């Protein structure tokens, strides 16, 4: 079977061929691997790749796989563009920045209409007793800032939009 994945905007093609049960020949790009597979649960896999052991934790949603390998995290995308979850009908170049963590907005550093650079702090969010600057992912104009200082925000809430 053939599949395509994207990781950091790069496409990878993978082919799997099961030799005997749980013993799979994998081609990734030009390289071939002999992989023996043990599922500990639906999420937890021991992979023996050419004799080398890897403890992998993997979980999927409709867009991507979240994979932990040897303590390192990777996000493997099912589609090339799933990295940016734009609003419906979003114009190209427009981005909505959402919070991944619930927390409290300590400070709003810029105003709607301001021009910001990539990496410039837009908001300060407090979570786990620490203050975190939420920075703009790109240069542009802030078209919307949703919360005010003092607001509590839920995970997934829109923080600001930039164009």
């Amino acid at each position: 079977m053939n599949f395509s994945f994207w990781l950091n905007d790069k496409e990878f093609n993978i082919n799997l061929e099961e030799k005997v049960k749980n013993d799979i020949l994998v081609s990734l790009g030009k390289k071939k691997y002999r992989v023996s597979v043990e599922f500990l649960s639906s999420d937890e896999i021991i992979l023996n790749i050419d004799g080398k052991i890897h403890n992998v934790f993997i979980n999927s949603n409709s867009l991507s796989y979240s994979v932990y390998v040897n303590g390192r995290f990777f996000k493997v995308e099912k589609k090339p563009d799933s990295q940016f979850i734009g609003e419906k009908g979003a114009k190209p170049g427009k981005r909505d920045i959402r919070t991944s963590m619930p927390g409290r907005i300590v400070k709003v550093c810029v105003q709607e209409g301001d021009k910001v650079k990539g990496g410039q702090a837009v908001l300060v969010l407090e979570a786990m007793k620490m203050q975190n600057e939420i920075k703009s992912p790109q240069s542009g104009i802030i078209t919307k800032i949703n919360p005010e200082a003092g607001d509590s925000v839920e995970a997934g809430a829109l923080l600001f939009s930039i164009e």
Partner: protein
Amino acid sequence: MAKMFKKILIANRGEIAVRIIRACRELGVIPVVVYSEVDRKALHVRLAEEAYYIGEAVLSQSYLNIEKIIKATKKSKAGAIHPGYGFLAENPELVARCEKEGIVFIGPPSSPMEIMGNKTASRVKMTKAGVPVIPGTLEPLKNEKDLQVKAEKVGFPLLLKAAAGGGGKGLRLVTRKKDLLSSYRIARSESQASFGDPSIYIEKYIEEPHHIEIQILADNFGNIVYLGERECSIQRRYQKVLEETPSPFIDDRIRKEMGQIAVQAAAAVNYRNAGTVEFVVDKNKNFYFLEMNTRLQVEHPITEMVTGIDLAKSQIEIAAGFPLSYRQEDIKPKGFSMECRIYAEDPDNDFLPSPGKIVHLHTPAGGLGVRDDNGVYEGYEVPLEYDPLLSKLITWGNSRTEAIYRMLRALSEYQVYGIKTTIPFFKRILLHPKFFEGDYNTHFISSLEKEEDCRELEDRNVALIAAGIKIYSERKTGSAPAPKRKESNWKFQGRLQNFANRR
């Protein structure tokens, strides 16, 4: 007469509450804990003998609420309160309340706690007691003339600091005399703008500073001992990250001198129980009193590992009225120990907090010389509301090199999946040539560059193969995606990652 407590109430949570539960059990004392709404399933609750609910997650409603703590203590009929560190550990009000209620507070009396809690008062007291403090002015500068005179006395480089200040506001480093006046004026106006008070004082600037602290124990019979030092110079944003003992920077003569000065400092305030005297040490090994922490430290385990003395148990024994069972000459530290603080933070993304569910946990506390003081378990949801310290991983070795390699082994085995942790960050520190040679000061981490990791490419390929295997097995068995319960957490993680990638 000394008599061990029947029950102790632990007014804390997380790994330190677990640590104290263990000390209680080893002394035959019943450990009683309190918990907030979000801590109903916390490990300290699971391991306690008794547990009392004290309210909402908001600190003022639970762990910082003195009345609720006292009430739970009385209800449980506990004879003493152990405050752990943080929260109410250095709050003289709780100590006073305990004294009034006839409850033993496991820590110092309120008077030394108050003195040491006040920066100016402790500086004055220590100066009187012959303890060296950082040279500078104790009072704000009167005027520009006063500035010139005092600056000349302290010498350059020096720091101008806002008396009302903090957080770097109104702070100026002056390296040359000719910059003194202009820096003073800027510092004043900044201080005025930030704190409404333009007062500035002078402190000597310590070049290439080390943070080194001395552990002391003092009983109720006038016996005070020091238990060696801890090197705490590996800091990020003034937070300790990794501690080790002995310090690779100082020698036996300085070690002994610092120990004796620390005992002197404790004696000067009639200190009792466990305490830590913090010093800043300059590049010429001159040391100056910084502050005294009147409680058990996060990093106490490394001292335990080399001395064999259980500090948490010692605290309880002292509070119960037992004299120290050893004298200074009996304390002979052996070997080398270090501690890595494992936080729920993403080291690859500016140490962004990473709360959430721990879906898989493997801890490495087997083999010689590895200890894992954690406060979590597989399936536990790390709450957003509290400090993100998950675990303290501690190793011991016959040599510093052995302790380092053992730490690397333990870190390579430590698996926390579902959330991000600082585990990968420590590998970068430990393998850094400067750290490995013991040649570092408090500037170390800020100068640390992210190095390329040769295993990253290999792991990336494994991740792709795993994704292939996953989709293949789903197609083959026609199995549905993973259960809802877990997915929600993973979605959360996915979002977090999305978010982090953008920054």
